[in-house]
């Protein structure tokens, strides 16, 4: 099926409806533990979807594997529950195939930055037009308490019974470095900020990365909802979100002080991957009815 290539400036939210956030909830109850931060992320996402007004028929939620990656089941939309670490490239394929769809990727810190870590730079630098919500609980939840790449070193887990031996990485610092065009951070208990950041991320044309610190009361005892809240400092109105150096500086200074910078850290507009593809097709005069014989003729002796 060679559908004509979409318009040159495809926007993800062409298909709008007016629905309340609860109307975006699918009729499957979240399977998460009581008190899990992921509940809060889901609530914020549902609100953001309602505020954006995206048509669930043109929304695709895509996830990997983990507690967090179950999120798509609970949202009324098209959806894919893929493999551990592979939601990003699956979303890339879906987005390029159908640039008119709104695509939200969700998953955990292990999913995104351990097994899927090799895909992150490419989602960012290619500026794939999707919204990526990382539910960062600093631990592997689904496999029951192992160290993740964002775990604090001192944390004891099943694989680090005497405390860990590795330093954690900072997802937002990586995404800034990788060239993401929208980088933001929040924590699950702050529904207002999380909702706003997801909504703006969806409205952003390009790859939007939102790291949501999401507590896991079952397996992470060192980071709870309270500690995330207390350590958070929202960036001030003076912060220039178009200045990459300023964004990195904010993150570095906060880390040094043991704080968590929240809010919109960086946002810049540049062509998305699908736009560049559409432009390329236009440049070569491509269209679905291009006569194949013209191509075959090139192989005549």
């Amino acid at each position, binding site marked *: *099926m*060679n*559908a*004509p*290539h979409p318009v040159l400036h495809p926007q993800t939210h062409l*298909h709008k409806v007016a629905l309340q956030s609860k109307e975006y909830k699918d009729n*499957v109850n979240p399977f998460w533990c009581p008190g899990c931060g992921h509940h809060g992320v889901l609530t914020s996402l549902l609100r953001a979807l309602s505020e954006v007004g995206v048509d*669930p*028929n*043109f*929304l*695709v939620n*895509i996830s990997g594997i983990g507690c967090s990656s179950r999120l*798509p*089941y609970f949202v*009324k*939309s*098209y*959806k*894919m*529950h*893929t*493999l551990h670490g*592979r939601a*990003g*490239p*699956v*979303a*890339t*394929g*879906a*987005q*390029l*195939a*159908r640039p*008119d*769809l709104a695509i939200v990727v969700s998953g955990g810190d292990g999913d995104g930055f351990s097994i899927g870590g*090799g*895909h992150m*730079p*490419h989602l960012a630098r290619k500026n794939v037009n999707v919204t990526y919500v990382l539910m960062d609980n600093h631990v592997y939840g689904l496999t029951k308490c192992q160290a993740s790449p964002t775990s604090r070193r001192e944390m004891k887990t099943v694989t680090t019974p005497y405390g860990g031996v590795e330093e954690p990485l900072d997802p937002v610092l990586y995404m800034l470095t990788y060239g993401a065009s929208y980088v933001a951070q929040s924590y699950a208990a702050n529904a207002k900020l999380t909702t706003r950041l997801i909504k703006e991320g969806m409205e952003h044309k390009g790859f939007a990365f939102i790291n949501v610190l999401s507590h896991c009361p079952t397996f992470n005892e060192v980071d709870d909802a309270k500690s995330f809240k207390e350590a958070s400092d929202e960036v001030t109105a003076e912060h220039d979100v178009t200045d990459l150096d300023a964004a990195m500086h904010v993150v570095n200074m906060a880390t040094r002080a043991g704080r968590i910078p929240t809010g919109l850290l960086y946002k810049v507009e540049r062509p998305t*991957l699908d736009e560049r*593809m559409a432009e*390329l*097709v236009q440049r*070569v*005069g*491509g*269209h*679905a009815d*291009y006569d*194949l*014989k*013209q*191509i*075959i003729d090139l*192989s*005549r*002796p």
Partner: protein
Amino acid sequence: MTKHDLIIRIAGEGGEGIISAGDMITQACARAGLDVYTFKTFPAEIKGGYAMYQLRASSERLYNQGDSFDVLCAFNGEAYDLNHTRLQPGTVLVYDSPGGDFEPDIPEGVHAYPIPMTATAKDLKSPRAKNMVALGALSQLFDIPEASLREVIAAKFARKGDTVVQANLTAFAQGRALAAAQTKTDAYAVEHAKEKRDVVVMSGNHAIGLGALIAGLDFYSAYPITPATEIAQYVARHLPKRGGTLIQAEDEIASISQVVGASYAGKKAMTATSGPGLSLMSEMLGMAFMSETPCVVVDVQRGGPSTGLPTKHEQSDLFLAVHGSHGDAGRIVLAVESVQDCIGLTVQAFNLAEKYQVPVLLLSDGSLAFSTQTIPYPDPDSYQKVERKRWDGEGEYKRYAQTEDHISPMADPGTHGATHIATGLEHNELGMPNYTPANHEAMQAKRFGKLKDVVTDFPAAEIDGDGEAELGIIAWGSSIGVVREAVQRLRDEGRKVKGFYPKLLCPLPAGQFEAFGATCGRLLIPEVNYQGQLAHFVRAETSLRPESYTVCGGLPFTPGMIVRKVKEMLA
């Protein structure tokens, strides 16, 4: 048996224009209406190293690269050293002398024509035209159509301007003159074609790209790997003209993931790789089977295991193609014989993927990847194209609905009332996770049930010969073309042999194998791998007990090898 074909091997250092000289002869012969089948080996190194181009031309239909060359054109001493044991009495040696880097002792009975290739090119002040001098000499000696060659040379260098065209034509003419001055002692010549035919000359890799375009490819995700890269190269050049998208991914895991994402979004999607890449894709192939997402994956096999012999020929990924993924993960596996198949079976691969909503793996191999062959001009409208069954909008949408033929209608995102999940978790008809024994059994039965019809849906494997035979040869992939010729030669010698040429390898058409086996006294399966991979499946899935003939030296079989083996067996 009269000899219709001529086999010329040009060998030397990579970068000396070996491949382009060979390509020009191929083009010229094809223009003159001859059938051409080429075989090349490249150095694994980026610069230098041994390069070889062998072309077989005939007025009759060709199915393989032949046994050995009639004519060796050696550009340097290394090329001579690597090939001189094959200079049997009656063969021809054309070599760079005087002025080359070696002076061979001409073996008894070999016709030798020294041509000062390097020196002449130097004298003409176009040292890079050494290959043109050689080309001229070969054209004179073996009656390769001069007018066609001149056209091909002019076309090849047209972009570089008239001066370059003229310099090359001069070197070519000089080569002809040098050869004309020698006394021809051999009787080899290219045959004249019976008729002009409307053909194209393509490599297996490019033909797979073309097949995909014909099938209606929308999305291709690439990751470079020898010997599959030229598929992406062809598609990258031409798919945008059709409004489609080719993207280079960060690795093969991403490639297959993007393909699955694009297919879920409703598009025809593919990727192509070689063994190492297919190994990386195996987890996502299982997801594609589980979530019933159509996709096409081409594996251009090379020598393994591990990094193995990247530029060499082998047929050793059958086990991986059939079983590579955890759990009971089904798929369809096809294997191409020829460049012609690379078009037709690629279209079929898409059709099967769409119809059965499964991953379809298409196996090609290292020699077919680069082998250029003349094939009849493919009419894109003559191929049947299948689209996936889509939901008709009636009633409640169930993505994984149990149906009579086990195929459940799909719904593209954007379809109202059909939101659903594609998932790798075991699920019920709605896609919701369900791990009960009854559900898992029912769903596995559904997914494998779809595949039952493939064997009858796909054209029956070709049987070469009728009646009873002393020996039947079962071949797959590009070995089929070799076996076709071996069977013919054995028959010409009065042996009762038959051939069986399956292209669908999974699900294995076991009944067809059995029926063929019942007509043969003994069975032989020649394969270019160590373990005898097809023979293994045949023993497992049929009552047949074939004998294996395996080689894995990085080169394809020759018809002579098969003929010798059969005679040995029937002695």
